[in-house]
Every structure is written in C-alpha cells, then in structure tokens.
C-alpha cells in the first residue's frame, strides 16, 4: 500500500469529502509526526506504535575500500516501536 492508495481508500470510505481534503488529512498526519520528531519530541499512538528519536554518538568509521579511518559525527535517527495491539494482530492469523 502506498500513500496514494491510502488516500484513495480514505476518499472511497468518505464520499462526502473532497479529494483534496482527504489528501491534506493524510499529508498532515505524516507531516505532524515528522515535525514533532524534528524538534526531538516523541509521538505515541497507542495500539499502533511510538516514534522517537535516538542519538548515535560520534565514532571512528572506516572506508571499507581503502581501510582509511574517517571521523563520523554524531547523528540522530528516527525509531519506531511497534504497539502491542498491532503486534498481536500480526500474529493472530497463523
């Protein structure tokens, strides 16, 4: 499923809404999550999961081709922890 398929599904389920509003709804949801993470906030959606930002410290990396050492500066990565409800749903079938 892609974002456009998600939008198409939501539009079909809500025929009273304009297509452009449905697009804005879906876009707003992911933009808000992105904005929250960009300022270091956590986003917790009970049942679905929680998004947070984890810090990776600076380290000495190595160029695998030349073996040369390179300084890798610290960075932040988005992290998603699956919610209990969806985890159970994935494993209920088989």
């Amino acid at each position, binding site marked *: 499923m892609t974002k456009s398929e998600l939008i198409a599904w939501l539009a079909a389920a809500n025929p009273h809404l304009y297509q452009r509003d449905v697009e804005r709804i879906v876009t707003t949801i992911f933009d808000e*999550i992105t904005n929250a993470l960009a300022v270091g906030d956590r986003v917790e959606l009970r049942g679905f999961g929680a998004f947070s930002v984890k810090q990776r410290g600076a380290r000495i990396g190595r160029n695998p081709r030349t073996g040369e050492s390179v300084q890798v500066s610290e960075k932040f990565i988005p992290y998603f922890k699956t919610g209990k409800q969806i985890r159970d749903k994935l494993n209920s079938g088989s």
Partner: protein
Amino acid sequence: MSGKTVTRAQLGQAVYQEVGLSRNESAELLESVLAEMSSALARGETVKISSFGSFSVRQKGQRIGRNPKTGEEVPILPRKVLVFRPSQVLKSRINERMRPVVPPQE
C-alpha cells in the same frame, strides 16, 4: 530536545486545523488512517509513505532464548514483526534541526 510526547489528541487537532471539519470527524479520520495501515500490514502488505518511510512485516524464525533470571532455556516461537524504515527525507529533517551548527567537512 524538548522531550514532549505528541499523542492522538495533538495529531487530531492538527488535522482539525488544516481541514474545515469538526474535531470529532478529524479524530475519526485519523483513526481510520491508522486502522487501515494496520489492516494492510496484517494482510502482509508493505505500507510505503513517500518522504516519510515504509512499514513492512518480517517473519522471524524460531530460536532458543533464555530466561535471564533463572538461566532456563525457552524456545522463542516463530513470529512476525513490524519494521519501520525511515525515508532519507525524514532522516535529514531530524538531523538538520537537531544539529544546526556542524559545518560539513571536506
């Protein structure tokens, strides 16, 4: 980092402010989106949200685990797990704001 937690309430509020619908309907639409994503994942589909990331289901095989308290061996049954791969756009958004003053070397 401000360390706040954003929940459904704030996401629903953002949808409410963005589109001219009632608060109630905005919250319901947010719920529909999450429910539909969950259903697609439960069917084994990958959910790809451009410029955000993709969610996919990975099958894990059985392995032997150990109860850390008693040292007892217990089998961990085969199961499905959800993995999120953030997009390049999301990764760079997170790093640009949190590390504004590191000039790139080279």
